[in-house]
């Protein structure tokens, strides 16, 4: 896929998301309270989609978007009153647009069924439009070959003067795409390429653009529609559009145009409010393909490793000036690294908003009333993590709506509000991001799960399980407590996949539930997957990395503490009891006699443990390298990294180590 196509798809996806989120907002409030700006927002998204599709020559999308845009325009101008039916229709239009985009970008055509649905939606959109606005391009049939406006008594002639700026070719865009778009909304009468500024081959800098074009054009669309065709190349062109004198030869028009330049109608002067807003917003950000960012992160990762080698060498040379220079370089590299990692961080809110539709649709299908809340949408998470998290979240939300929330009559009978609440909450905590799916539904009945597990021979009848262990049974493959299998959930397929997907992201999922009150799924995820700030420690002759975000403090293991540890398995740190995990013992490494031992206090979520290590070496920028199939399942290790001297150090999986220690402690206590 070309970079342009990737950007096109990303932008279309963004516009569809905006459209859907705004329509769902509109759906949630009484029609009389709807703000005009909300309609404008949907209109702008549709308008941008149409423009983008036009640039890439996707006529099917343009035709469809055009009719929808007409209806939205009538609504925002107060000519047509918005109804619930229309909102539902626009949501279907959004879905259909996604389907068409996928088909078009894969060079596929709509099949018979899809074409039928497409025409049905076009018909429905047109039905809402007054007859005088149902012009030729809103004809209720699939327009395959051309959408050119062939006849319209409102046609206006324009002269478009287009000059390519020096760097135009570097933008990756082509005048042909613009021409194609213009053909969709009007008639091209003549195009003249002016080559007078192009030098001859021995003098030309072929990377610089020298071309100019005079385009004679007619359309019934307003001038802002014409300027929209140039949306993608605004920075790289000089553009003037003016209404042409009637029936003039292009040369003659060109002369008229030169005169008219004093009173030119520059595209930024048009009353195209949406486009203007859009441009200013676009100027604030730069869209970069994620592949480029990934490549950059990989390169930075390799630089971090190379830097560690230089640092090691600097220490060995004992040249203080050299060492100081390397330290400065390391600090700068760390800043660059953080900056690059920051680019990958995106707010979870956009992704969460897409899930709203799923909740709304399932609620409708199951006859439930649901208020869907998003809290902490501004929380940032690595883009890859968010993308991979989407499926698990969909699954859990489906379950929450289908199985968690009761029907309105049952809720009322139980003294609850008829409308259930499903909350999707995100917040950072101790170097991780926590995502919670909270519902105020009927909760999970532990006995039902337990009995089902016994029935399925997953556990013994007399097994003594804690609440969390019982809830964890839900994550076993094929486990489902739903008596009725619906097309939404209850097939027992999914929760195991949910857990696996989350664990693949180095995350955890945890269930809490209170009968009749509701259920909370807590997902805890690392901030990023590529590079972390680590703390290097030595145990016997092996080196380990502890993620810095997990470290609370480091303390020396005093002889008093050693005695306490020997007797009780824990030490007292100030006033708190701190369970200690001996790293050497855990990995079955032969211990070495060291004068001084240390405790690194680590935390994951709300749990805290002390790790007994020999030497504290110091902070280390850690590029996480996968361990490969053979080593990936080693308990307590989450990855590896390469040190400056080429040695490999394992990254400790703090979450698993803490879980192990707590479980071990509980079993020793007879639990």
């Amino acid at each position, binding site marked *: 896929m070309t970079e342009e196509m990737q950007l096109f798809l990303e932008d279309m996806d963004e516009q569809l998301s905006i459209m859907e989120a705004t329509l769902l907002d509109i759906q949630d409030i009484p029609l009389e309270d709807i703000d005009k700006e909300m309609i404008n927002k949907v209109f702008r998204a549709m308008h941008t989609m149409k423009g983008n599709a036009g640039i890439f020559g996707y006529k099917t999308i343009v035709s469809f978007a055009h009719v929808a845009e007409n209806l939205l325009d009538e609504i925002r101008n107060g000519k047509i009153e918005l109804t619930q039916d229309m909102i539902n229709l626009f949501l279907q239009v959004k879905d259909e647009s996604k389907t068409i985009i996928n088909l078009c970008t894969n060079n596929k055509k709509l099949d018979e069924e899809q074409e039928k649905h497409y025409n049905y939606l076009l018909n429905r959109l047109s039905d809402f439009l007054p007859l005088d606005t149902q012009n030729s391009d809103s004809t209720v049939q699939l327009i395959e070959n051309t959408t050119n406006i062939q006849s319209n008594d409102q046609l206006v002639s324009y002269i478009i003067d287009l000059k390519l700026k020096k760097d*135009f*070719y*570097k933008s990756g865009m*082509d*005048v*042909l795409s613009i*021409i194609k778009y213009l053909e969709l909304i009007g008639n091209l009468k003549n*195009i*003249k*390429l002016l*080559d007078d500024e*192009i*030098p*001859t*081959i*021995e003098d*030309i800098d*072929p*990377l610089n*653009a*020298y*071309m100019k*074009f005079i385009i004679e054009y007619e359309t019934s669309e307003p001038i802002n529609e014409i300027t929209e065709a140039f949306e993608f190349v605004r920075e790289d062109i000089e553009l003037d559009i003016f209404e042409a004198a009637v029936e003039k030869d292009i040369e003659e028009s060109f002369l008229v145009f030169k005169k008219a330049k004093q009173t030119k109608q520059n595209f930024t002067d048009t009353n195209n409010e949406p486009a203007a807003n859009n441009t200013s917003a676009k100027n604030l950000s730069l869209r970069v393909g994620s592949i480029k960012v990934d490549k950059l992160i990989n390169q930075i990762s390799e630089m971090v490793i190379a830097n560690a080698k230089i640092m090691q060498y600097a220490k060995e040379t004992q040249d203080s000036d050299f060492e100081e220079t390397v330290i400065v370089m390391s600090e700068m590299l760390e800043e660059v690294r953080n900056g690059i990692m920051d680019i990958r961080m995106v707010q979870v809110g956009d992704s969460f908003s897409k899930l709203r539709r799923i909740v709304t649709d399932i609620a409708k299908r199951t006859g439930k009333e649901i208020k869907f809340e998003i809290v902490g949408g501004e929380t940032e998470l690595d883009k890859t993590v968010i993308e991979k998290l989407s499926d698990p979240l969909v699954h859990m939300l489906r379950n929450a709506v289908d199985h968690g929330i009761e029907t309105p009559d049952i809720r009322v009978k139980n003294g609850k509000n008829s409308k259930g609440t499903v909350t999707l909450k995100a917040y950072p905590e101790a170097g991780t991001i926590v995502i919670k799916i909270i519902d105020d539904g009927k909760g999970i009945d532990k006995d039902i799960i337990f009995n089902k597990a016994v029935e399925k021979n997953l556990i013994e009848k007399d097994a003594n399980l804690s609440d969390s262990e019982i809830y964890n049974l839900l994550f076993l493959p094929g486990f489902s407590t739903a008596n009725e299998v619906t097309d939404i959930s209850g097939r027992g397929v999914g929760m195991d996949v949910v857990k696996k997907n989350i664990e693949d992201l180095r995350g955890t999922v945890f269930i809490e539930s209170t009968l009749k009150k509701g259920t909370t799924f807590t997902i805890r995820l690392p901030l990023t997957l590529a590079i972390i700030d680590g703390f290097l420690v030595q145990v016997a002759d092996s080196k380990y990395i502890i993620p810095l975000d997990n470290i609370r403090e480091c303390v020396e293991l005093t002889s008093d503490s050693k005695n306490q540890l020997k007797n009780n398995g824990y030490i007292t740190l100030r006033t708190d009891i701190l369970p200690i995990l001996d790293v050497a013992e855990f990995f079955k490494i032969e211990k070495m006699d060291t004068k001084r031992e240390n405790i690194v206090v680590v935390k994951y979520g709300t749990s805290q443990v002390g790790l007994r290590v020999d030497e504290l070496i110091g902070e280390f920028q850690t590029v996480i390298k996968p361990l490969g199939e053979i080593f990936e399942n080693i308990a307590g290790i989450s990855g590896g990294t390469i040190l400056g001297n080429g040695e490999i150090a394992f990254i400790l999986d703090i979450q698993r180590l803490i879980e192990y220690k707590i479980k071990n402690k509980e079993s020793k206590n007879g639990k």
Partner: protein
Amino acid sequence: LKIAYKELDINEIENFQKDILNEIIRLDSEKLVLDFTDVENVDLCFLQTLISIKKYCDNSHINLIIENINSNTLKQYINVFNLNQTLGITND
């Protein structure tokens, strides 16, 4: 001169310019023949260079002959921008 590039775009244009300049230096007739049989894809940047070659040829009284245009994009450019006359293309 048989043009040996499959893609003639912004990435190759400087090399193409060098090839053409070398060809012009060793040109021993008043005719420059560019054979585009192998060229599959071009961009606007190339079109501009082609026009600049034509300009040079016109100024130097060299007859530029463009042969075997297979690239659909190039054909499109020529049609959309009415370049048959500008580039002296008389056949298809």
